[in-house]
């Protein structure tokens, strides 16, 4: 069984992070692509949260400690390398999860979308890892910053390890973090939710 709240929250929070890229991407193609990833995840979030209750009540009226998303997805966008590394790691986890639940509607439909996400991230990891000294350095820093959050997802998979090897990027040797599934979040979640919820909360009971 896919946990509707955990994965729904993952998709919602990661989608919100990607929305923060809109109009700020390095190329117009990436503006389109990142919005596309955000849309896919928002769609999956809505389907999953609707299983757990009313999608808007869940998205807009819970406190940070009531969110069940993993810590990885709430990490800030940082530079493009951070966003791509985060997406590689998360889409790899989600692809695997969906792939193991072919009987689940959301997973069955979502697995194709997420396969694209994972390939998109893979291609950029190669470009960044093998591109310039600066892109290699930034991607290494992103990996070190985000790797601690893979433990909560029982990652990384052989796919990720292959991508890193192909991109000449070292697997970081850092301790793991967890707590998101229990509502113990990093300090980055509350400001993200503040922005997400502000308008909805300012007009209690209004229809939109």
């Amino acid at each position: 069984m896919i946990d509707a709240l955990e994965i729904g929250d993952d998709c919602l929070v990661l989608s919100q992070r990607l929305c923060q890229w809109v109009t700020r991407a390095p190329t117009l193609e990436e503006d389109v692509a990142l919005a596309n990833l955000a849309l896919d995840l928002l769609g999956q979030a809505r389907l999953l949260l609707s299983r757990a209750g009313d999608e808007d009540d869940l998205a807009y009226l819970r406190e940070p400690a009531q969110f069940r998303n993993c810590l990885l997805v709430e990490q800030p966008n940082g530079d493009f390398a951070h966003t791509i590394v985060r997406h590689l790691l998360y889409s790899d986890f989600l692809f695997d999860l969906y792939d193991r639940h072919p009987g689940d509607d959301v997973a069955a439909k979502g697995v194709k979308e997420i396969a694209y996400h994972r390939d998109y991230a893979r291609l950029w990891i190669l470009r960044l890892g093998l591109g310039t000294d600066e892109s290699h350095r930034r991607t290494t820093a992103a990996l070190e910053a985000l790797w601690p959050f893979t433990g909560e997802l029982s990652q990384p998979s052989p796919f990720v390890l292959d991508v890193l090897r192909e991109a000449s990027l070292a697997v970081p040797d850092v301790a793991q973090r967890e707590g998101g599934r229990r509502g113990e979040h990093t300090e980055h979640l509350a400001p993200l939710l503040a922005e997400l919820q502000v308008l909805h909360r300012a007009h209690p009971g209004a229809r939109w």
Partner: protein
Amino acid sequence: MVTFQDLIDADERVEPRDDMPEAYRTTLIRQIAQHAHSEIIGMQPEGSWITRAPSLKRKAILLAKVQDEAGHGLYLYGAAETLGVAREELLDALHDGRQRYSSIFNYPTPTWADMGAIGWLVDGAAIVNQVPLCRCSYGPYARAMVRICKEESFHQRQGYELLHTLAHGTPEQKSMAQDAVDRWWWPSLMMFGPPDTESTHSAQSMAWKIKRHSNDDLRQRFVDMCVPQAEILGLTLPDPDLRWNAGRGHYDFGEIDWGEFKRVLAGDGPMNRERMAHRKSAHDEGAWVREAARAYAARSAR
């Protein structure tokens, strides 16, 4: 051999491989580039609300809309490239102020209702301007416009519907909607450009069948379309002189503040500096990414 003028006279499409006057080419580049720039700068006033949309459904709609605008930018830069100018050159011209984007995007979006007013009025005006461009003499531009107009009319309906929901919501929502319409109405009318008596490029563009109708004709068409829609919304258009003229078969409307139009065009609108600063900083921050992609492509090509 079929000449450029034969194609124009026969109302046929000019294609990239065809000979064309240099002035036709530069006019088209200027117009298509300005249009492309408007799409990407036009993402900003709406983009800032995606993260704050008040329901997940509205968030998805707005995100998809802004994504479409980026897509329109891609089609249009592509159409301009068929005229022998690279996207990078056009972006440089935008960034250093040699080329413009539509002035309408220099107004701010302080409330959520602006998402509705932009959809209804700004996209509405854009459609009235752009539908005739689907029959423009230059093939790649005309085909891009067909696709764009289809998506824009979808956006316009969504904006109208958003505004309708607000106008029939709580008193705060209704007043938010009215306030947005008050702020966007006049700038929307300015989107059709200066009055025909002062419009500079129009005659030649008409002869080349790039442009099909005059600024004032299109503006009138837009006003006539909006008045009954505003009634259904239950919102007031902020023009005391707006009334039906049975003799003309059109709505009369008040004087446009062309002084404001010129000020905003000259760079002194409420958001000109912010829009350009945001655009340039995104471009500059992405430089290392584009460079990495180029280096990787070169390496893979070896």
